[in-house]
C-alpha cells in the first residue's frame, strides 16, 4: 500500500518536483507513471523510498510513515521494496553476481540460498553468462537487466521501477514486461515510470500521468496518451 497526501517536493529555485500529489496505490496493483521529461516521475518514485525527502505532506508505504521516517528505519523500509533505478546504480567493484547477491546478503540470507536465488534470477533476465563480469564490461541493456534482477531478487512486496526498459530493444522489453506481470500476478505491487508508449498501450494497466509535478490523469486501463 502506497499513499501520498498533499505531497510537495521543492528542489529550490522554484522547481517543484512534486506539487501537492495525492494518490493511493493498493497492494497488488500495476501502475504506470508517465509524463514528459522532467515532469516529476522520478521524484514521485524517489519519495516512496526516501531518496528525496518530502518538503510537506504525508507519505505512507506499507507500515512506514515515510515522511517522518528515522535514519535507522530507512534500510528496513527499502528491504520491503524492490527498486530499479533510472541510472541502474550498480556497484562498480562488484561482479554482476555479487551485485544481485548484495541485496540478499544485507537481509542476512544463507549463502546457499543466495547463490541459488541469484543464479535463478540471472537466468530469468538472460544474463547467466555475464555473472562474473563487472558492470563496466557489459552493455547498457545488460546493466539495466542486472538492475531489474537485483530489484526482484528478494521477492519484494512492492516493485518500483524507473524507466526499466529505456535501454532495451522491443523484444527484450517484452520479456521484462512478462516477468513484471508475472510477479504482479503473484501479488506484488508494481509501480513503473516509463516512456515506452507501445508497452503502455499494449499491456493495459492503471496509468498516472504527471506533468510539472502534478498528477493530471489517473486512469485505470488507460493508454500512454489521453485520447
Amino acid at each position, binding site marked *: 500500500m502506497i499513499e501520498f497526501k498533499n505531497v510537495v517536493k521543492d528542489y529550490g529555485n522554484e522547481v517543484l518536483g512534486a506539487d501537492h500529489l495525492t494518490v493511493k496505490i493498493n497492494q497488488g496493483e500495476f501502475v504506470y507513471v508517465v509524463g514528459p521529461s522532467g515532469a516529476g516521475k522520478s521524484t514521485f518514485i524517489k519519495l516512496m523510498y526516501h531518496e528525496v525527502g518530502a518538503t510537506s505532506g504525508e507519505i505512507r508505504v506499507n507500515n512506514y510513515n515515510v515522511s517522518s521516517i528515522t535514519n535507522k528505519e530507512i534500510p528496513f523500509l527499502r528491504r520491503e521494496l524492490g*527498486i530499479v533505478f533510472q541510472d541502474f546504480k550498480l556497484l562498480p567493484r562488484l561482479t554482476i553476481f555479487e551485485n544481485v547477491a548484495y541485496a540478499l546478503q*544485507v537481509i*542476512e540470507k544463507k549463502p546457499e540460498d543466495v547463490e541459488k536465488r541469484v543464479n535463478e534470477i540471472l537466468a530469468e533476465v538472460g544474463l547467466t553468462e555475464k555473472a562474473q563480469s563487472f558492470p563496466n564490461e557489459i552493455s547498457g541493456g545488460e546493466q539495466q537487466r542486472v538492475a531489474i534482477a537485483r530489484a526482484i531478487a528478494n521477492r519484494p512486496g512492492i516493485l518500483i521501477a524507473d524507466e526499466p526498459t529505456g535501454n532495451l530493444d522491443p523484444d527484450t522489453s517484452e520479456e521484462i514486461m512478462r516477468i513484471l506481470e508475472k510477479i504482479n500476478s503473484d501479488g506484488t505491487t508494481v509501480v513503473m515510470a516509463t516512456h515506452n508508449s507501445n508497452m503502455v498501450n499494449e499491456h493495459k494497466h492503471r496509468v498516472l500521468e504527471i506533468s510539472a509535478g502534478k498528477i493530471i490523469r489517473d486512469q485505470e486501463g488507460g493508454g500512454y496518451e489521453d485520447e
Partner: protein
Amino acid sequence: MSKLTFKRHITESLRNLKRNGWMTTAAIAAVTVTLLLVGVLLSVLLNVNKIANDVQNDVEVRVFIDRKTSSQEQQDLKKKLAKIDGVDNISYSSRKKELNNVVGAYGKEFRLFSGDDNPLYDVYIVKTNEPKDTINVAKTAEKYQHVYQAQYGGASAKKLFNIVSGIRRWGVIISILLLFVAVFLISNTIRLTILSRQNEISIMRLVGATNSYIRWPFILEGAWTGLFGSIIPILIVDFSYGWMYKVISGSLRSTNMALLTPHTFLVEIDLLLAVIGIGIGALGAGLSMGRFLKLKN
C-alpha cells in the same frame, strides 16, 4: 552481528582492498611511510631519552683514598667496598689518571701539578645496581679506614646536564607531536579513500543495507590497510635497530650509558606501530563514514 555476516565482512573487505588496486596501494604506501618515520624517530628519541636518563642517574660513587694508604691496604678496602649492599662492580683510577682527566677537560695549566705536586687522590669508582643505592654506599664507605671522602651523584660536567635535559624535553615534545601527526595522516589517508567511494556507499544504502552492515567492511579495510602498512616499518626498524645497537653499544661500553635493549624495546615499538596502523586505520574509516551514513537517504 551473526558469525556468518562477520565472515562475509572479512572476505568482502579483503576483496575490496584487492579491487581498489591503486587506491589501496597508495593508502598502504602512505601508512608505511608515516609509520616508518614514527618508528625511526621514536627509536632515536626514546634512546636519547634513555641515555639522558643514564647520564642523570649515574650509579657511580667515587671513593677517594687517603694519600698514605699502602697498596695492600687499598686491596683490603676494595674487598670491603665490594661487600656493601647494592654494589655492582669497582674500578680503580690513580691520581695520575685523574689529573689527566682534568688536564684533558680543563686546560694545560693543570699539568703544573703532575708528579708529587698532584693534589688529587687515588679513587675507587664504585658502580651500584640502582641510582638510589649510591647514597647508602657512599655513607658506608665514608666510615671505612683509609677513605678520605666518598662522593655520589655523577661526575659529569653540569653543562652536559643542561644540554641533556634540554634534549630530553624536546624529545618528549617532538614524540608527542609526531604521534599526533601520524594519527592524523593515517586517518586522513583512509578518509580520502572513503570520500572517493561516497557513491558506492549511497548505493548500498539504497538497496537496503543498514549503516553497520555498510560500515564494517570499510572499518576492516581500514584495519587491513593499517596492518599491511605497518609491516615494512616494523621490519626496517627491527633489523636496523638490531644492527645499530651492536655498533653503538660497542662504543658505549666504557660509559654508564646504554641503548634500550632490542628484545624488549623492539617488541614495544613494533606493537606501537601495529596498534597505530590497525587502530587508526579502523577508527579513521569508522569515523570518516559517519557523515555519509547520517544523510537521510
